[in-house]
């Protein structure tokens, strides 16, 4: 998939972070914390750092649970790229079969409010400016402007 879906040519993006870790909840906490540090070094404002970190936490959690079936022998990859204007692209990839994002329930609908799951992708879409889930659904690309 081309990176320029937000209008930013791939050639303008610089790699800032590229980490592959086992599909394990403790490992992804370390990735999120390391990514937050990278954002701080890039002088991303606190509010934006929080929104990106939470979106990445959700994307990695989905990759661990749904993409890898909580199997730590599998690997998930997280990349962060940015352009000179400060636009940030994060991608999270897992080796799973993917999912259909159109079939996800609305967590704010009556009956779902007290559910103990089903809010991850919704949160990502609220927190990031542009989100694309690549076919077959095992790579999520998220832009923050």
């Amino acid at each position: 998939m081309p990176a320029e879906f937000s209008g930013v040519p791939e050639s303008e993006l610089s790699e800032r972070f590229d980490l592959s870790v086992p599909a394990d909840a403790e490992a992804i906490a370390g990735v999120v914390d390391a990514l937050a540090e990278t954002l701080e070094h890039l002088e991303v404002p606190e509010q934006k750092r929080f929104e990106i970190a939470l979106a990445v936490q959700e994307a990695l959690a989905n990759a661990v649970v749904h993409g890898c079936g909580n199997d730590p022998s599998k690997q998930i990859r997280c990349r962060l790229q940015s352009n000179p204007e400060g636009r940030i692209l994060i991608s999270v990839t897992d080796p799973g079969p993917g999912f259909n994002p159109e079939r996800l329930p609305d967590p704010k609908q009556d009956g779902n409010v007290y559910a103990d799951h089903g809010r991850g992708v919704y949160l990502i879409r609220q927190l990031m400016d542009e989100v694309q889930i690549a076919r077959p659904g095992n790579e999520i690309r998220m832009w923050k402007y």
Partner: protein
Amino acid sequence: MDINVRKRSQVQVIQLRGALRMGPAVDGLRQTMDEALSNGDTRMVMNLAEVPMVDSSGIGLLVRYLAVIKQKGGNLKLAQPSKFAVQTLKLVGVLNLFEIFDNDDAAVESFAKIA
């Protein structure tokens, strides 16, 4: 995540410190809540002042236990939620499910008013 539990005026006050997210943090809090419930405690205050992140697993845990505790006639109230905790709970439409207080004292005293 650090989880500190103390009892005040028959109310369990649970102080959290760190991100409430999938993994040891959510697992540890679930264990704490299950222990409290098995002891018959259904009046709880959770202090989120030092919780900079609540992910969807943490939200799921909070609303699930809120429902369980309310079914038993109790309540789970939030004290001093951090700015980002409030934003997150609001984003997914569950903030208004909780009673929220500025500090532990006010949250604990609110139970006495309905006793």
